[in-house]
């Protein structure tokens, strides 16, 4: 059996994910921008950093913010030999660490920019290295760095950001990008490869005459595997449709309005989604007979069928497709 088709897939929110930060993290991120680390005093007097809005034990509202650090102590660490571009903001080996700033009772997850792992140890003293340009983001504290014995942490340099302001930070934008190699599976791969040969192939249920297209490898009514391939017709009946008046949703429909429809292909039992062209939107109707129009160079992908056009045959009677409407 040939391997399933694989397609590279990127999951990304264009421009990043916009988040409101709430009152506690507003104080924290505004503090980082201003070159200080802000925690909050909990109901039991412990100083929590980053600050939380509510006490983790009693759920009481917390608003007694206190400045901590600037130096801190490594509570735990692990070495990252190879930073990942586009994810890690440091471009050479570093450590992830839990660092407890002086005056705080909890540790924060951050990075330590050390040259070698042997510069790190539990209990090691570290100091913040501040970014020159700070915007109210967790990497304004660029990294913790080893603090030689007997030295004090230096204060943060003035914020060199062109848009530096004193206003409280209320939101952040976090980029998220994940990459995948999606595997179509056995049934869908057969279907897609057939599209590349200008054929539409579904699968028949084991215990009924139902033909599913696109096939999923199973009969959704019973969960039983489907393994018998069936080529279905390239003509079908519009069971329902809608007129789209929003531009830019489909490469195959550059102009609005256009019609997308559910089309019951001859010989199949699951309506299939397609665009309808070659007819004024006002003239599209349920029961209309349409046929597939292929691209010049079809491949194993859903884009091989450009759209459907009316065949000119008389409309199918409602009785023939009412169970699918």
């Amino acid at each position: 059996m040939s391997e399933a088709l694989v397609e590279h897939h990127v999951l990304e929110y264009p421009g990043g994910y916009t988040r409101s930060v709430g009152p506690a993290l507003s104080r924290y991120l505004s503090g980082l921008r201003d070159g200080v680390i802000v925690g909050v005093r909990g109901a039991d007097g412990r100083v929590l950093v980053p600050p939380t809005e509510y006490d983790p034990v009693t759920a009481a509202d917390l608003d007694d913010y206190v400045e901590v650090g600037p130096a801190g102590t490594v509570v735990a660490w692990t070495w990252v030999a190879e930073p990942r571009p586009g994810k890690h903001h440091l471009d050479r080996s570093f450590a992830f660490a839990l660092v407890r700033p002086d005056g705080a009772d909890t540790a924060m997850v951050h990075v330590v920019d050390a040259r070698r792992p042997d510069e790190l140890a539990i209990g090691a003293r570290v100091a913040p290295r501040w970014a020159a340009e700070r915007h109210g983001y967790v990497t304004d504290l660029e990294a913790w760095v080893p603090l030689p014995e007997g030295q004090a942490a230096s204060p943060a340099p003035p914020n060199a950001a062109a848009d530096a302001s004193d206003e409280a930070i209320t939101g952040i934008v976090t980029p998220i990008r994940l990459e995948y190699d999606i595997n179509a599976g056995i049934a869908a791969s057969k279907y897609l490869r057939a599209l590349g040969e200008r054929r539409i192939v579904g699968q028949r249920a084991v215990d009924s005459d139902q033909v599913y297209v696109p096939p999923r490898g199973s009969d959704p009514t019973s969960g039983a595997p489907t393994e018998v391939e069936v080529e279905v017709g390239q003509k079908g009946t519009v069971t329902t449709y809608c007129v789209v008046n929003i531009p830019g949703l489909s490469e195959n429909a550059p102009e609005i309005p256009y019609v997308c429809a559910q089309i019951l292909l001859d010989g199949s039992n699951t309506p299939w989604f397609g665009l309808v062209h070659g007819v004024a939107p006002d003239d599209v109707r349920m029961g209309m007979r349409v046929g597939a129009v292929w691209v010049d160079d079809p491949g194993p992908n859903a884009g091989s069928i450009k759209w459907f056009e009316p065949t000119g045959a008389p409309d199918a009677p409602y009785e023939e497709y009412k169970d699918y409407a």
Partner: protein
Amino acid sequence: MRDVAVIGFAQVISARERERNEVELIIPAVRGALADAGIARSEVDFTISGSCDYLSGGPFTFVSGLDAAGAWPPVKESHVEMDAAWALYEAWVAIQTGDVDSALIYGFGKSSLGDLHEIMTLQTDPYTVAPLWPSMVDLAALQASVFLAATGRSDAELAAVAARSRRAALANPYAVAAEDVAEDALLARPVTHAPLRDADIAPITDGAAAMIIAVRDVAERHCERPAYLRGIEHRVDPQGLGLRDLTTSTSATLAAHAAGVADGPVEVAELHAQFSHEELILREALGLGDDVEVNPSGGALGANPVMATGLIRIGEVATRIRSGAVRRGVAHAAQGPCLQQNLVCVLEADR
């Protein structure tokens, strides 16, 4: 309380599945669990799955899983964006309400499609932690670092867990990381995420698992020796890693107490430990003595089909009880970074 038992279980596991998609992995798992229980699909009242859309990188991809379960005409159905052990919990609650008498539970995921360790960063605090992109292995390594320092244990004890798991996995046809290896040999391998080595980290695994549970009268009709869920509970620790004592697992201890782990002898325990040190933390948190056989399947270090791994722990214990090998055992499932959320259940045969 209504007595509820596990009466069927099946799993489909692959190290990196290149042919079948998720639905095609679930089909044999569901059919296998139904066959194991000797029950018809139409006789099962409730259907629930556990999965994570981020594993496949698309919204609502869990819905297609229903194609494998047989869901037309529409069935009573639910889903949790968690390991299917939590789907089992919801099914157990549904049975307790009296609305349903039996349930099909399945969990599935293909960790090989993306970068699992990076994907799991997205379950951390999105303001102060996720933007730094620590992977789930980086965060586990931080917990291991704290744990070893606080307890005075050494990485030799991690290697002992890893070696025992890999050897046990040899007897498990569903394991993907199995080898006859000694602790010393593992210690000689490189540290990849200090203080962890590769063998301390659960392998990337694709797969699905399915389970049938039912109330006593249905269970006794279909199963000679049902594995009854005597107690089940789940608890969660705070999200902030710095707010937690990472040397222990408070939520696991509370869940174990509520589930009644200490109310009888524990002959076998399957723990959802994705890293060697997590097993050591969980043994203490659950109060398991040295006489308890832990992870005879090889555990998550032998196979880790994310979103099914926890359910498989329950299935492994249930299978041993149903076969008569043991009478009472404990199963554990975990979610979140550094054992943040923990589910514990006690399974037992009547005799």
